[in-house]
């Protein structure tokens, strides 16, 4: 069946379209060029804004730590249950929504894909099982490496780049991952030996390798394997005043190789001023602007109750004293990594939180290339993903932004340059930052754009001056050519798919890994490996090409 989406204002930065009126043709779930035949169905989109489905490049939606967070957020689930209605199953939560609610809320906001950015190898099977229960959106996981004892042993043994790449390639394939993530490289492992702080150039307590070396080795492996997405880095000393130095160190450590710095807001702090806590957003933004191999996502905080959940046990142990409510969990996990879950409330009248809010916005407004900066709140660490429309409004509406700034702790404006930043994001830049750019960064060649051959993930908005209202409730959302949301209501259920890479590597590495699993892990390697038919009951994988040295 051929469907014509007629006369909308199309924002498709990948094809260079910035609001021109045009038609889209959809057949068999794909965008096709105008075939010249009469469409079976025409939907009139005159006056509407049309974009590809949005892609959340970093959102903690599935896996062990997310489930632990749900358990700790018991009060939220008691207060915010979701009643089953129509196609939407019951569930609940805001910062830690249940799986069906996660998929429905994302879809209702025009998102057609979201990626779990911290999937542990030992927990990957759980993450995939949970992702399969999130309807409507595509998913995938980034594999956490760089604290696993096997990797550190391999690196410490003097293994060359090839062997390291083989290990990384084998792990990505076995765990059905899309990209490589590193969280506080070396730090989670060091915490298991009672090290509570990290120095980028100090050798680790057991494997005696520096975090700088771990980082460099992983970036090189990703490049060598040709994984599309750069090494996705949750950097050192998260949340610690003065950590901008460590952030700059991590950029230097990869020596020009592509690198993605995640939730950079939490890593952009100086120690100036009477409170010894200041914004280093300008420094970071300048570095990003002049380094084309760098991309970032912001990790914006928004005020209110949420929960911080990450693999970074060292940082979370440090945060535990600030838990609100006063409960928290930390786990050391399977000679692999760890997790830390600390509920948290960001308060607009608290100087530190208010400045964090400003720092995130400064990053958005100072980085000039919308292809290298992505819109995230590090859900749920900065705020629930349902806050994205509010964030878009803050970026597109300077007066609104300044009004909000005036409501915060009164000392904040003097401690940041946000008041002087007049920039307002355009619709085209939003489309780039939330669609075209994340798709390109992840190597999803047929998503994030509306050119012929693209998957027909299409979102239609009414252009409203209140950008929050506009982005909160798209008129229509299509997933793979099928209408799934109309005016905020689910009209069809569909299953997403799981995106993975299978980088070429020398299979001989498996024997090396297998010997160590036999000796230590109490689990056979054959049982550790995830079979393709385990993903979404067998038909769930989308494999993306790796091209060594190309990215």
């Amino acid at each position: 069946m051929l469907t014509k989406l007629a006369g909308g204002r199309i924002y498709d930065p990948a094809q260079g379209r910035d609001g021109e009126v045009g038609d889209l043709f959809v057949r068999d779930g794909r965008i096709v060029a105008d075939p010249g035949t009469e469409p079976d169905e025409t939907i009139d989109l005159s006056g509407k804004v049309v974009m590809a489905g949005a892609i959340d490049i970093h959102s903690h939606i599935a896996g062990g730590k997310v489930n632990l967070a749900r358990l700790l957020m018991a009060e939220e689930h008691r207060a915010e249950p979701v009643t089953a209605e129509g196609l939407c199953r019951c569930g609940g939560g805001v910062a830690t929504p249940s799986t069906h609610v996660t998929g429905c809320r994302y879809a209702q906001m025009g998102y057609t894909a979201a990626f779990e950015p911290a999937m542990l190898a030992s927990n990957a099977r759980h993450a995939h099982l949970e992702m399969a229960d999130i309807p409507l959106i595509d998913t995938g996981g980034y594999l956490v490496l760089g604290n696993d004892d096997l990797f550190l042993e391999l690196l410490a043994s003097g293994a060359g780049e090839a062997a390291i790449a083989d290990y990384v390639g084998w792990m990505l394939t076995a765990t059905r991952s899309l990209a490589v993530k590193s969280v506080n490289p070396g730090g989670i492992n060091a915490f298991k030996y009672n090290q509570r702080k990290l120095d980028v150039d100090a050798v680790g307590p057991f494997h005696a390798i520096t975090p700088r070396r771990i980082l460099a080795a992983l970036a090189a492996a990703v490049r060598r394997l040709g994984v599309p997405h750069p090494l996705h880095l949750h950097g050192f000393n998260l949340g610690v005043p003065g950590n901008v130095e460590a952030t700059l160190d991590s950029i230097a450590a990869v020596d020009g190789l592509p690198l993605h710095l995640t939730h950079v807001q939490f890593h952009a702090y100086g120690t100036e001023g009477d409170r010894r806590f200041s914004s280093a957003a300008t420094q970071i933004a300048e570095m990003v602007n002049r380094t084309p191999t760098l991309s970032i996502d912001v990790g914006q905080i928004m005020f209110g109750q949420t929960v911080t959940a990450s693999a970074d046990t060292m940082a979370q142990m440090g945060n535990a004293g600030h838990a609100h409510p006063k409960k928290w969990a930390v786990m050391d996990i399977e000679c692999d990594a760890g997790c830390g879950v600390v509920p948290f409330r960001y308060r607009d009248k608290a100087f530190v939180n208010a400045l964090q809010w400003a720092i995130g916005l400064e990053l958005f407004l100072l980085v000039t290339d919308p292809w290298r900066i992505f819109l995230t709140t590090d859900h749920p660490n900065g705020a629930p993903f349902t806050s994205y429309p509010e964030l878009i409004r803050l970026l597109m509406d300077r007066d609104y932004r300044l009004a909000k700034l005036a409501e915060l702790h009164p000392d904040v404006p003097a401690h940041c340059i946000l008041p002087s930043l007049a920039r307002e994001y355009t619709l085209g830049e939003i489309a780039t930052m939330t669609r075209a750019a994340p798709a390109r960064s992840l190597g999803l060649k047929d998503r994030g754009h509306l050119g012929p051959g693209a998957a027909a993930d299409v979102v239609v908005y009414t252009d409203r001056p209140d950008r929050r209202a506009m982005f909160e409730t798209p008129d229509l959302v299509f997933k793979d050519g099928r209408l799934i949301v109309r005016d905020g209501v689910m009209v069809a259920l569909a299953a997403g798919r799981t995106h993975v890479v299978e980088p070429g590597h020398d299979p001989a590495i498996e024997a090396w890994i297998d010997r160590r699993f036999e000796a230590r892990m109490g689990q056979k390697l054959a049982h550790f490996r995830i079979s393709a038919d385990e993903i979404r009951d067998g038909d769930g994988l989308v494999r993306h090409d790796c091209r060594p040295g190309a990215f």
Partner: protein
Amino acid sequence: MATHCDVVCPFCGLGCDDLTVEEDAGRLAVRSTDCPVARERFGHTPPAEPPRVGGRPASFDDAVRAAAEILWTSRAPLVAGLGTDVAGVRAALALAERVGAVVDHERSEGLYRNLAVFQRSGWIATTFAELRNRCDLLLVVGPDPAALHPRFYERWVVPPPALQAPALREVVFLCGEPLETTRAALGEVPFTVIPGDATQIGAVAAALSTALTDPTGAAPGIAGLAERLRAAHYAVVAWAAAGFPGAHADLAVERLVRLVQDVNRQTRCAGLPLAGYDNVVGANQVCTWQLGVPLRTSLAGGAPRHDPHRFAWERFQHAADAVLWISAFRPEMPAFATGKAVVALAQPGTAFAAEPAVVIPVGTPGIDHAAHVFRGDSIVALRTGHLIDRGLPDVAAVLSAITAALPQEASC
């Protein structure tokens, strides 16, 4: 005859995946280990039986229809037992949502001794491979966990730590005696027994916490143990709460969790709550991710209401008028009071105190069909293989059929 190697055992939560199981004409025998749980469970494979309705053989479709009818006409249904794999739990939750049932797992009492503490305070915990490779001091508290998890020491304690220097480990038993089999299993691993009573676990944990910073006045053994904890590189405190005495064992667990946090101020320490029978950990994971809240939840009125007191199956069964009970790991089922319509998804050969209204024999995960289950330390999920085919349906298929047989009008 066939020999199956590297068989995954789904029964007690340790997740042993190294079993050798011999198969001969549909009968299985575990050859590689003496573990009584594995031997008994794998050894129990009576031939398939047809479903029964009202005690008489019935077709699958008739049994499914009868089960659907019971649930749809009930006023207060309970979907429990949940002794099944991830697919089975998913199907059970979908059915429970359609009929507005309360959901719980048979083993949730043991689970909640830990989970109640986690929900209100969180904890510092670790997993099996960390214990095996990094722990230099293991403190086992309460009744020996090997009573419930027979291979615990063999698999996770005896092998020397590969990631700790020096590569040494010692074990201390507190408020519980190691079993004879444990003493034998530990072999060369040095261990001490500090005498004490399982009813005193909370008080002893509190005394240990105090002794960490102020050993004066501590009972003999406690001061010494406190010092060893402080000197350890990576101490693990392990306990099997299902074996703790008393109705308020969570208060003792809470003291243990605090002890771990107190030791962790100075050095590294983590707790290891041992659990996992009949995939209770897996059932709880699935429930939590699908509903947002854990087991012991009502789906009446179409939204989850979580209440570990009111919706514990042992309590709610008195209010329930229909019970759908799932027990695919063991040929056992509790007895329910008369006046309840019981639908049993049970292993063939299960003996019932009273004949249920509907019985649908099901296959055993890991024996009749491949299955996803969770290991007891809650992070690792395993996929079992399957060994024989008795022609039994799996729980997920039965529950999906029952759900499909419900009237198609809007659920409550």
